[in-house]
């Protein structure tokens, strides 16, 4: 540790140091971003396998591929995994890798806290999945409605694993959110005013604010649940006069902002990709930014549209119907801005662009079905049916995941120094697009025919057989598309075409520095004079400055203690599942980790303070 390169010489390449220890002790935002990306993709594959098992079970009526109990665990873990362990951390991978580069920073504001966030995420994800081997996975849905989650109806440890696991993951998300708020507000390059910031960095800021304000609400909901389960309180026990709707209100007060936590980073990614491959600045930049802020703000005022079916009364229903429909306005504005960006541009249909256009198309379909269930009478017909399943998968798979793939193809050359293969990329895109529609489009019809969600099978002769078989075939297409992508990543990482600093002719600062970037990112942080700095008059000057050191560069030193603290926190909270005493070793490790962390200097030497 003592020998770690604290002052990165201009000649030292970023990835010269290898080995497991260098990854465990890293505080470099680029390495942490890579760790987030690889880990989250592994969980994405796991969640995908769970989805395949669900679809195999539903391929035929009255199928017995898995038992009803296993089926409940599968759909619960599929939802939990995809939301908390795949899409959120895949977005976090981009926050980590891209945002400091886009705003002209050497790292995030708190590099060790950033490492801590990653390790807590990794260990929390493993913890939730351990439940499969320790008495059964949670089986109450990713939303865990009370009072199905009570000890009376869920006596096993599955719900405990779920509730404690989400608390652990919440710590990771909150720590990362605070870190990125400070990074974006405080560590921008000289001259980069807020309204000169790239849209992706803007959406990261909005998303971080949403995480900071929404996660404490689910923390409280889960704390009350854990008290009910472990201390015998009555928060969600109707027999004691409690109202189980309290859970639904708290959960969706978190849950709807969570939807925007999943989609706003995706909107940020396509707002970077579309201008680059249209060779035109983003159409109406301020309006796109304000719409994103407005969506985040409104996201806290629509939660009860998830609860129309419980009968909140005409006043509440009307309020939440109107606020929900209102969100369609900033969303529609953004879509028109993206189309306006492409309009009249010199379109280059490279793989990132295809995925970005695919995102717009699929997101419009998901958005349209979303507006349908903003209307309470329509929602009463659709709620708990496959129509809603179709909707969420169009916005989350067609939306978030397509945009994440756009981002992966777009920034992979910056991350690795090599281009992903464009031909394989196009195979991936078209297979993905067709298979996605084959999987999820028939679900609209199955839902309107009355097929309920979360039921392990359906009888023959309701007109659902063909629709379900189509969906199941589609899932195998999605698996094939994902395999093509994985092959592309492995092959291109090994022997892809060298990317150079700026393979796409991008407009933002990350394209001014080498690929992969050196550990210190910018040899000298350049001054920014406007939006799209690399398309402006000062581009040549910025590119030259970014690789020319002027004076010593201080980098944060490596630390082992964030990983130790993360292990401690996971053992402390995870131990609670088996009784309070089993948290004691975790408490000791946590205190050791945090104490050592606090007394280890953040910088080598520190003589230049």
């Amino acid at each position, binding site marked *: 540790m003592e020998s770690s390169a604290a002052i990165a010489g201009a000649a030292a390449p970023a990835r010269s140091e290898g080995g497991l220890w260098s990854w465990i002790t890293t505080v470099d935002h680029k390495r942490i971003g890579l760790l987030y990306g690889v880990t989250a993709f592994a969980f994405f594959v796991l969640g995908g396998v769970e989805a395949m098992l669900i679809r195999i079970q539903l391929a035929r009526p009255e199928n017995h591929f898995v038992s009803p109990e296993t089926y409940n665990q599968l759909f619960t873990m599929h939802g939990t995994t995809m939301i908390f362990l795949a899409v959120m951390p895949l977005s976090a991978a981009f926050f980590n890798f891209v945002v400091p580069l886009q705003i002209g*920073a*050497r*790292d*995030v*504001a*708190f*590099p*060790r806290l950033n490492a801590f966030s990653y390790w807590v995420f990794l260990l929390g994800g493993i913890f939730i999945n351990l439940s499969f081997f320790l008495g059964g996975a949670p089986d109450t849905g990713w939303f865990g409605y009370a009072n199905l989650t009570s000890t009376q109806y869920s006596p096993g440890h599955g719900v405990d694993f779920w509730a404690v696991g989400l608390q652990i993951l919440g710590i990771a998300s*909150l720590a990362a*959110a*605070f*870190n990125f*708020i*400070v990074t974006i*507000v*405080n*560590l*921008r390059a000289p001259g*980069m005013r807020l309204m000169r910031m790239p849209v992706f960095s803007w959406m990261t800021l909005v998303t971080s604010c949403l995480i*900071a*304000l*929404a*996660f*404490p*609400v689910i*923390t*409280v*909901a889960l*704390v*009350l649940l854990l*008290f009910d389960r472990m*201390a*015998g*309180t*009555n*928060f969600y026990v109707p027999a*004691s*006069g*409690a*109202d189980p709707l*309290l859970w639904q209100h*708290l959960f969706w*007060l978190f849950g709807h902002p969570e939807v925007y936590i999943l989609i706003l980073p995706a909107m940020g990614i396509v707002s970077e990709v579309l201008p680059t491959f249209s060779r035109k600045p983003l159409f109406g930049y301020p309006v796109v930014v304000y719409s994103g802020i407005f969506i985040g703000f409104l996201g806290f005022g629509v939660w009860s549209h998830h609860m129309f079916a419980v009968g909140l009364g005409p006043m509440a229903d009307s309020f939440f119907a109107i606020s929900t429909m209102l969100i369609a306005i900033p969303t529609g504005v953004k879509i028109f801005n993206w189309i306006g960006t492409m309009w009249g541009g010199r379109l280059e249909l490279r793989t990132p662009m295809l995925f970005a256009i695919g995102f717009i198309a699929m997101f419009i379909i998901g958005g349209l079905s979303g507006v349908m269930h903003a209307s309470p009478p329509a929602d009463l017909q659709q709620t708990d049916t496959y129509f809603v399943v179709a909707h969420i998968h169009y916005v989350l798979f067609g939306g978030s995941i397509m945009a994440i793939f756009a981002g992966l193809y777009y920034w992979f050359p910056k991350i690795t120094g090599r281009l992903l293969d464009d031909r394989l990329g196009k195979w991936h895109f078209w297979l993905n697009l067709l298979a996605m529609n084959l999987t999820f489009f028939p679900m609209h019809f199955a839902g309107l025919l009355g097929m309920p969600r979360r039921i392990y099978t359906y009888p023959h002769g309701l007109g659902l057989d063909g629709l379900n078989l189509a969906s199941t075939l589609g899932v195998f297409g999605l698996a094939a598309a994902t395999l093509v992508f994985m092959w592309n990543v492995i092959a291109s990482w090994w022997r892809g075409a060298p990317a150079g600093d700026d393979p796409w002719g991008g407009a933002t600062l990350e394209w001014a520095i080498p690929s992969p970037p050196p550990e210190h990112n910018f040899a000298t942080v350049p001054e920014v004079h406007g939006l799209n700095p690399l398309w402006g008059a000062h581009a040549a000057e910025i590119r030259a400055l970014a690789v020319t050191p002027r004076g010593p560069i*201080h980098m*944060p030193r490596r630390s082992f203690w964030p990983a130790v603290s993360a292990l401690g926190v996971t053992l402390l909270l995870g131990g609670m599942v088996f009784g309070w005493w089993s948290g004691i070793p975790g408490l000791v490790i946590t205190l050791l980790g945090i104490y050592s962390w*606090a*007394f280890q*200097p*953040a*910088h080598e030497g*520190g003589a*230049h*303070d």
Partner: protein
Amino acid sequence: MTDAALPLAAAGAAAPAAERTSTGLNSRKLLFWSFIGSECMFFGSLIATYMVYRGRDTTGPFPHDVFDIPLTSYSALILLVSSLTMVLALSAVQRGDRRRAPLWLAATALLGVHFLANQAWEFTHFVEKGLKLQTNLFSCSFYVLTGFHGTHVLVGTIWLWSLFTLAVRGKLPPGRALDVEVAGLYWHFVDVVWIAIFTLVYLIH
């Protein structure tokens, strides 16, 4: 809120702290303000839970059976006074007053201990009157809300005591006043939360 370029301290920012930030705000302070924003939603949800369940119980003890308003008013006064001593502690550290700084830090921490002792006495007294954690909706929403607040006071007390031990050994020069300022932000926040709890839970019937 004052000068931003204070030297680096324990938590450590990415760039040497002497480096200017985009806003002029110190990064650690901004981190803490974001954390406090998040904590507002945390306590907001707990208080909302208490308010939603108020008056739903059919079996007692009810709030008016157990609350001792004079005692709790005294507890609230203790916390308010501790905010004053906190301000005096920060001021002493900033001025480099090595005699008064540990004194005011110790006073703040001891007032925290006093508050916690009152709360422990209050809880014991309530349990004696038959209000256990599991008794009814009032009991569980009351104990969890005030218990979490008490835990925050406990964390703050330990924090302040650690600063006190540093100050006694002369390891809290004016250059490290930010360490005290951040602890002060936390302490004042915990105080403000208590004012909300005291008003909404104890005073309004």
